């Protein structure tokens, strides 16, 4: 267990976070004590980096009170952050001042027992106060047989029981529903969901991290499960980089999603987060041979996960076709708020790319020399995280 942050004055309602990143698997290929049959599984370079990036994002506003990207939720502020990272070298995190003064903390590894212990601590904090929010992030190896299983650092410790050091994700989430009164629980699982024949054939069902008594009524207020990839599919990362899914997650959380109600603050809820992550992965898929599509499920009456500092952002990309018309055309962007200026860009400069605020716009392409008929999109909904359009024009 490594408690990175515990709020000095526990907020009445808070957000409790558990981050687990597993890159170093002791008994897999390349591990310090590999098993005879490692089932083709090896070490991962991305999970420690991805998990650390997420921890840094959660803690950023506590290190720097100026408006920077990071976790903000005035209704349910960060109350605790528990983290485990299994990496070849121990990972240290700069823990902000909370119940303890600011200090450097070295994170524990993530064997199944360590994950269980950390989960138990996190769960106890979560259910202590009705209305709390819990976020559980896992990055590492995963498999699936309809429900998803996360593989811990000591997988294959006992070769006779190969899927022992594993926990079931769906069962863990469902179980919490019977113990967390009025709470909101979000699982972000950055792991593969391939179906290993061995599990299917042997009909093994690894247990959840905790099974709540079925005597309990389901008392949660909402839950969501955001998975990096679809059933039976793989999740990807570049060597020594933040994974695709976590990159999309962090970008979304930095303001590339969100809504506001009745003039209230801009906020991101579980559905908006999932939708933006899905769209960002789709953008990545355009240039990647390995396609990855996230998967999402939510239930209950959800509340926002974070509050934004301003209007959500959109990566806008407008272009003109055919190329021959570029030198004669310009692309314009008119926000429909009646206050913002018109933005005009000559097409000869290439595609018009810009980060704009979410909103309703009039967009168009025109030729001041009359070489082509104008094309326009009126009252266009430019929604995070990404908007692109090619104006096809004709003389």
């Amino acid at each position, binding site marked *: 267990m490594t408690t990175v942050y515990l709020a000095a004055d526990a907020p009445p309602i808070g957000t409790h976070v558990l981050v687990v990143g597993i890159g170093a698997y002791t008994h897999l290929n390349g591990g310090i004590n590999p098993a005879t049959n490692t089932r083709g599984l090896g070490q991962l370079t991305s999970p420690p980096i991805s998990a650390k990036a997420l921890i840094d994002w959660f803690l950023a506003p506590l290190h720097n009170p100026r408006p920077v990207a990071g976790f903000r939720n005035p209704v349910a502020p960060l109350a605790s952050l528990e983290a485990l990272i299994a990496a070849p070298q121990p990972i240290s995190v700069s823990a902000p001042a909370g119940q303890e003064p600011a200090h450097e903390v070295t994170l524990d590894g993530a064997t199944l027992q360590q994950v269980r212990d950390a989960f138990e601590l996190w769960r106890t904090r979560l259910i202590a106060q009705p209305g709390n929010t819990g976020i559980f992030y896992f990055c590492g190896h995963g498999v699936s047989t309809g429900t998803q299983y996360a593989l811990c650092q000591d997988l294959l410790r006992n070769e006779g029981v190969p899927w022992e050091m594993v926990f079931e994700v769906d069962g863990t989430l469902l179980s919490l529903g019977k113990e967390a009164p009025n709470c909101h629980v979000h699982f972000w699982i950055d792991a593969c969901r391939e179906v290993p024949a061995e599990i299917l054939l042997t009909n093994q069902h690894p247990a959840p991290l905790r099974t709540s*008594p079925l005597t309990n009524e389901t008392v949660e207020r909402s839950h969501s499960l955001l998975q990096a990839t679809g059933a039976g599919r793989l999740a990807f990362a570049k060597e020594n980089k933040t994974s695709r899914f976590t990159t999309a997650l962090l970008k979304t959380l930095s303001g590339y999603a969100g809504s506001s109600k009745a*003039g209230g603050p801009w906020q991101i809820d579980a559905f908006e987060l999932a939708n933006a992550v899905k769209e960002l992965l789709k953008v990545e898929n355009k240039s990647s041979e390995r396609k990855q599509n996230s998967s999402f499920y939510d239930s209950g009456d959800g509340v926002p996960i974070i509050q934004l500092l301003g209007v959500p952002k959109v990566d806008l990309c407008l272009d003109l076709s055919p190329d021959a018309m570029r030198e004669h055309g310009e692309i314009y962007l008119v926000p429909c708020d009646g206050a913002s200026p018109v933005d005009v860009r000559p097409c000869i400069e290439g595609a018009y790319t810009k980060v704009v605020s979410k909103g309703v716009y009039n967009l168009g392409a025109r030729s001041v020399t009359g070489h082509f008929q104008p094309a326009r999109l009126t009252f*266009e909904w430019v929604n995070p995280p990404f908007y692109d359009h090619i104006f096809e024009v004709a003389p």
Partner: protein
Amino acid sequence: MKTLEVSLDYVSSDLAMRSPKSLELGASTPFPFRVVDAHGGALAEGAVNSRQSTRVEFDDPLNNDVLFVRLVWPTGRATTQMVDYSGSQGAAVNFTDEMVGEDAWAKWAAPRVPYARVPMSSSRSEGRVDRGDAVDRFGNVWLRLWTHTASGWALVDGMPRSSSESNAKARQMDLQLGPGSHLLQVGGAQMPWVFVSLPGNGPCRVYLTPNPAADAMNLPLKLVVTSFRPEAETLVEFLSRDALRAADSIGRFGPVAMKLLQGKVEDAVSAIAGAYYLLRVGRWRETPIEWFDNLYNWFPWSADAALIRCVVTLRKGLNTQDDTLRALEQLRQSVDRGVPLFEEAHRVQVEAHTLLRGLLFPSSAEADSSDRYLAPAQPDKFKPLIDKCQAFAAARAWTGPSFSYFGGVPDQPSSQKTRGAPPSLSCMGSGDTGQTMISLSDVLLTETSTPAARDRRPTPRRRKRQPSVTYLKDL
């Protein structure tokens, strides 16, 4: 306080949604809408259908002169219109489906078919629906129909079709199905063998078109199914896409969900849709338990009703071993009654079998759980049931709001995605029904084609006769 009257003129879509033998306009499809400012901040939301305009009242803290209304389709596609409030606190807006560039018969399906991302705006001329390539590419896709009987699953002899429609982009067939559970099986060289649950005991329409959103998760061919229950189907369509906010707008429109469940005597399928919605959004707690009991008891053919009752039992909490046995019996019924109708059943089934498995077959970490006394004496008796549920979860396919899964025969869901010619029944260990193959071209030529169309159509190729297989290109 501002007011807005939102009306919908989707009459041509509603007309296309009529069941084949109905002369009257059926129920109208509701769509959610949101009133937003220029930055997309929401000021009000609601739902509207062609029969009934909706009036919303809302505060606009910045008193904007201009606001926008976004009408959202289940696919996420939306139409945006500007509303001018200059010098006024009240306004009205009307949405029409005239921009939906489909044949009249196909308009009902347009809001449910994903689209290549061409923005649609009611105020621009290029807002036509563009849905990619022609359906002929999938000509060799085959279809067959299964029905659940007291002795298990059986192939239906041909498609009990009453009519068909086709154009370059899509094929459509109207079926008349008997009571009970039905599965349409579809497969081909590019299309993995997939089962799609069809609503029984009445007319049912299936629309097939290339899926512009095809990817690793979405099948290359999109199937849209209706049993002419627009309210219920729109509700489960939004649920299947995890668009809970939109589903909530629909669910509160009436409020539809309670109405659907209350009216279960008249229409079990709509009641089931309403029950799934209440389970999903957490409003099952406010629903009288007797309603779920009635759904379960009055519709002994419905796998969904049994599954819904099982999960309500589990959510309420088990107190005795009898409660556990009751939940297990409800889960067993959900499997014995055939397959559920709606995609939402996959999620509910995972909840049921995951919780029950932990009780029946605890791991060493779970063995000292305080609820051990709830476990039945012979848990192994229930292992095949739990394994079967797990198999359905592993074989889950996504075709929209219909319950779907991969496999060769209905009783053997498979996580493997098999493509190619229809599986031979003898190879699969299922008895030969002795029924004849009916090519859809045969049916089409004799039932619906004009002589001119027949002349243009190539002579249908006679394939080796295989029971009850129909080819898409012949539709």
